[in-house]
């Protein structure tokens, strides 16, 4: 087990380098100009431009820039944004907010999704089953910015059930409730359907039938055997989803004015601010890899046939 974890940790290094280089190269290739908007709606003066280019090494070739970047990164220096703000300060400020949001979304989607999946899977064809299937379909097919806008307008502005936007730097759980639900809504549909599908399959399988015929109550057979096996793909999915939620919250964050990482990366891409994009994505990649490792370890717990020795 220990050596397995160590091996996995070592494997992370090339992945981190690969992903950061990929992002760095893509950011480097971005068309347009990092000085766009620096001087309002007019071009910057030649003098301003020269000082700016010099300061951020914009004239170096890609590999040299990447080398300089990784060199600094190794010492924990994430560099500075084009607005003279330390990237590491921004990350420290923003990651906790987004992590909180993503965790709440995960919690929401896991709870609702698995419960809905189990209920529908056990009573197939019932009213509840139909209702859940139809509503998950609807959720999947409406883009998140429509759901977010509607939820904000009705639940926040019109009926006043939730705060309309996050109002301060330290976003509270209450303020993040609605955004987390919006963010997790698409995944609820996925989790519910995955749980249901797998549960239905497992319920038909021999071992569950055997368990029931041997006198186990249906409830016990489902809880102990069928559900545990059905959750393997679900856990895989949630593992994937955490990384995606961290960075994919762009739209949700912008609708609810959440000072998180998604919107930060998006704006940095728009302003061609390479240091911010690569720094934020690097952390994202590391988080993703760690979560992934945990998911793989969970496999072993859920399915004893898989072992990590």
């Amino acid at each position: 087990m220990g050596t397995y974890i160590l091996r996995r940790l070592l494997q992370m290094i090339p992945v981190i380098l690969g992903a950061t280089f990929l992002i760095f190269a893509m950011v480097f290739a971005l068309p347009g100009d990092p000085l766009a908007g620096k001087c309002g709606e007019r071009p910057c003066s030649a003098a301003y431009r020269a000082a700016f280019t010099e300061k951020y090494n914009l004239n170096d070739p890609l590999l040299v820039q990447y080398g300089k970047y990784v060199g600094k990164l190794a010492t924990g220096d994430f560099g500075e944004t084009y607005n003279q703000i330390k990237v590491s300060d921004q990350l420290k400020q923003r990651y906790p907010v987004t992590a909180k949001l993503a965790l709440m979304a995960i919690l929401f989607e896991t709870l609702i999704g698995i419960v809905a999946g189990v209920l529908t899977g056990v009573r197939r064809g019932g009213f509840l089953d139909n209702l859940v299937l139809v509503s998950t379909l609807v959720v999947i097919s409406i883009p998140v910015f429509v759901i977010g806008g509607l939820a904000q307008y009705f639940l926040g502005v019109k009926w006043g059930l939730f705060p309309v936007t996050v109002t301060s730097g330290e976003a509270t759980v209450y303020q993040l409730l609605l955004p987390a639900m919006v963010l997790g809504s698409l995944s609820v549909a996925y989790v519910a359907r995955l749980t249901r599908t797998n549960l239905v399959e497992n319920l038909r399988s021999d071992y569950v039938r055997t368990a029931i015929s041997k006198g186990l109550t249906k409830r016990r057979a489902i809880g102990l055997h069928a559900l545990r096996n059905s959750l393997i793909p679900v856990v895989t999915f949630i593992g994937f989803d955490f990384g995606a939620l961290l960075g994919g919250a762009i739209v949700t964050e912008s609708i609810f004015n959440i000072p998180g990482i998604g919107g930060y990366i998006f704006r940095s891409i728009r302003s061609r601010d390479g240091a911010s994009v690569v720094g934020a994505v690097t952390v994202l990649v590391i988080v993703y890899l760690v979560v992934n490792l945990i998911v793989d370890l969970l496999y072993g717990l859920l399915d004893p046939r898989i072992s990590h020795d």
Partner: protein
Amino acid sequence: MTEATITESSSVADPHDAGDVGEERSLASDAWRSMRKNPMFWISATMIAVFVLMAVWPSLFTKTDPTFAVLAESRAKPGDGTWFGRDIQGYDIYARCIYGARASILVGLFTTTGTVLLGGTIGVISGYLGGWVDALLSRIGDVFFAIPLLLGAIIFLVSLPDFFNDNYLLIVLKVVFALVILGWPSLARLMRSSVIQVKPNDYVQAARALGASPWRVIRSHILPNALAPMIVVATINLGAYIAVEATLSFLGIGLQPPAISWGIDISSAIVGLRTTPHMLFFPSLFLSLAVLAFIMLGDVVRDALDPKNR
């Protein structure tokens, strides 16, 4: 109209009518046999056929030019000579919905096909072979997967050169390309875990012990068993990709006018969410219906392919 009814009816599908259980009886023909008895198959297939027809031959459905603007009637409500009303520019929303099918359907279909082929193949290979191949492929997958889909797509699309914007098909393929590059690892991982789950089963081990070729073992034993979760996710993904395309348009990236797509129309209508929701409703409805049709079909196919149903 639900998956449940599909499942029920297909499990009732007669398992005894199979006369010749030999090599000739392919998985596909089995599936077809059970599918054609299923009314859901026909409903979803009809809807898809309509959308595809819309994509191929839009003028069959409307004589109105989707780029003809009557600005004075901008944001007009349905009625008054238009079925669905007019949008901000004064374009006929009905005509826009018809002509918009092409882009969304193309993006959805191409991306799903691309991710299934690429992700599925890589997933099977790494799950079946294991060892260093698995390790290498998984790490490569990690690199791409570790970059969140939406963010990655944004960076990707922004950094692709401008000449992509000149031709309609190229714009679509640009979006497809970005989504496939970033979307395949999720299917690969899912496939891989399914394969790992199925591989230890006795029938697989038995087939291998009997000397079946890897291709044969994969095709006749592993694939049918591992395919179901992948198809579920892939069909849901088809809808999600169309929605991602809409989100990218919302953010000002991806498909751009003069291309007509539901995504573009939804994003330009979003400002009217509180005031003129019909501009948002109709393209959203078309989008949702298209997604619904594909997911329904996916469910039917899944049940038909699942050997446990027979």
